[in-house]
């Protein structure tokens, strides 16, 4: 990367700084300053109680203590993780299988482009509109109930929106639909990068498709697998649009589908800036730690 630049005339290089100005200026103004002020806010008591404005008063770490002791944060964290896992497990299994099939030359599947185009499509759909669509389709008098009843699978409309399992299930299912195509394509890129002579050698040695998958493909795929998992986890922690629209921000039934970002959004709307700040900092720390893992694994891959 460095060696071909030696001949270059030195004074051009100051343009490196000039070309960096827009990025750095916008980053500092719209991300750095807001981030610092978010952290600053987290140490203050600052909210509205009725018409009265309380604070801002410096209270140290009291907001953090309140987040952990008031009992809501662990619950919303658990909700977020449950819905993420419910969506991620089928997503990674289906994606691995599809990627293995698409890249398996002995299978030579036809219409690959068609299938890839279709499975990627839900990823581009506006999540809020998709959630609204599911809300109408799974309504008590909606088409899904109507179809199930006409097939005599149920005699009365199933109230999808009133059961913990069905609401969480719908959120997880939507996340699965929206992301399995993306994951398949990422894993495919990883699989296509594997030296094909390895597969040939294994075949000559009499390994079957399953052995090849678990003994060769999976170990080589590990870095990309970790990347997919952690980025998905970071994305999962940011889960918002789908449950927010589906439950109209309530996280019902009994706030069982309320996610961390929905909780943050609630504090932002009610102008409880102290709690919103503390929650943001906790999210920042978690995603920061997870990002470091991704950073490490991708850096290892390059060397």
């Amino acid at each position, binding site marked *: 990367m460095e060696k071909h630049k030696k001949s270059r005339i030195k004074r051009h290089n100051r343009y*490196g700084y000039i070309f960096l100005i827009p990025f750095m200026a916008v980053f500092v103004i719209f991300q750095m*300053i807001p981030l610092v002020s978010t952290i600053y806010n987290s140490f203050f008591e600052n909210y509205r109680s009725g018409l009265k404005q309380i604070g801002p008063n410096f209270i140290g770490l009291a907001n953090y203590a309140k987040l952990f002791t008031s009992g809501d944060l662990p619950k919303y964290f658990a909700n977020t993780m449950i819905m993420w896992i419910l969506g991620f497990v089928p997503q990674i299994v289906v994606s691995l299988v*599809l990627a293995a*099939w698409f890249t398996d030359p002995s299978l030579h599947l036809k219409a690959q482009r068609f299938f890839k185009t279709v499975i990627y499509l839900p990823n581009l759909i506006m999540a809020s509109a998709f959630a*609204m*669509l599911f809300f109408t389709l799974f309504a008590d008098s909606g088409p899904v109930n109507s179809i199930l009843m006409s097939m005599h699978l149920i005699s009365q409309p199933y109230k999808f929106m009133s059961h913990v399992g069905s609401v969480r299930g719908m959120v997880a299912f939507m996340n699965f639909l929206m992301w399995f195509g993306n994951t398949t394509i990422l894993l495919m890129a990883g699989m296509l990068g594997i030296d094909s002579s390895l597969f*040939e050698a294994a075949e000559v040695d009499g390994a079957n498709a399953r052995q090849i998958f678990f003994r060769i493909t999976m170990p080589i795929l590990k870095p990309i697998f970790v990347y997919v998992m952690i980025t998905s986890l970071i994305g999962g922690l940011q889960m918002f649009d789908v449950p927010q*629209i589906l439950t109209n921000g309530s996280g019902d039934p009994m706030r069982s589908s309320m996610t961390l970002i929905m909780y943050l959004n609630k504090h932002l709307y009610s102008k409880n800036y102290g709690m919103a700040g503390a929650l943001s900092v906790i999210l920042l720390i978690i995603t920061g730690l997870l990002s470091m893992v991704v950073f490490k694994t991708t850096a290892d891959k390059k060397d």
Partner: protein
Amino acid sequence: MAAVQAKEEKTAKGTARGRRIFSYIILIILTFLCLIWFYILFINTTRSNGELGKGFTPIPSTHLIENLYNMLHGSLPFVRGMLNSLIIAGLSALFSTYFSTMTAYAIHAYDFKGKKAIYTFILAIMMIPTQVSALGFVQLVSKMNLMDHYLPLVVPAVASPVVFFYMKQYMDSNLPASLLEAARIDGAGEFRIFNTIVMPLMKPAIAVQAIFTFVSSWNNYFTPALILHKESMKTLPVLIAELRSADWLKFDMGQVYAAITFSIFPVIFVYLFLSKYIVGGVTAGGVKG
């Protein structure tokens, strides 16, 4: 290799065929799962409120135009919403691709102190979600008197680490230093080189990233919902949320479906033409769900 396995060929062929049939069945099921929702959406958009109340039929009815007309002339400003979405998403795509290419070019083409540190820094901030600084962002925008304005939703796109990373990688394999050297000898200025030589060479990468930025901005709900409160400034996702929070049973359900169709189908339609570039560009990375 075929010769080695000659005696097993017959059974191998048999299992390969079975596996192929099995994989086609799974793929067809998944295709069905991906598309059925949009099919039902389309059918229901063609039916009147009365017909919708009678239960589902898979055959389209005749009220498509009527529903769309009612929705566009209804209480929520969907036409204006689409225009707002188009402007914000379009400008975001423009800003993020142009300035990310510029940032990547700075790192790619020049040698200066702190370059490596800056590169590492940009990669390190790639994963930080926008939500964690939302509180400070809203306060800042409010202090700048930019609430209900396009700017706070467009300008931050200038600093897009993911787009930067893609551009940088593309430059590493597609932008030879010798070409820039030649332009410099011809006496071209640095900005001129960037705008007239580098940008055209980056077209394929710019196209891919413009699509991705456009779509993610088009679909974005969290930030616009915090910034846009005036009815005439709202984007489509914010209007969808409003539709959801309205007492929806009183609505004409035909209109509700028409509104969802209006938000979803333009993207599907564009995707049919651009799918080749989109599916090819996915490996660029970034945060996912």
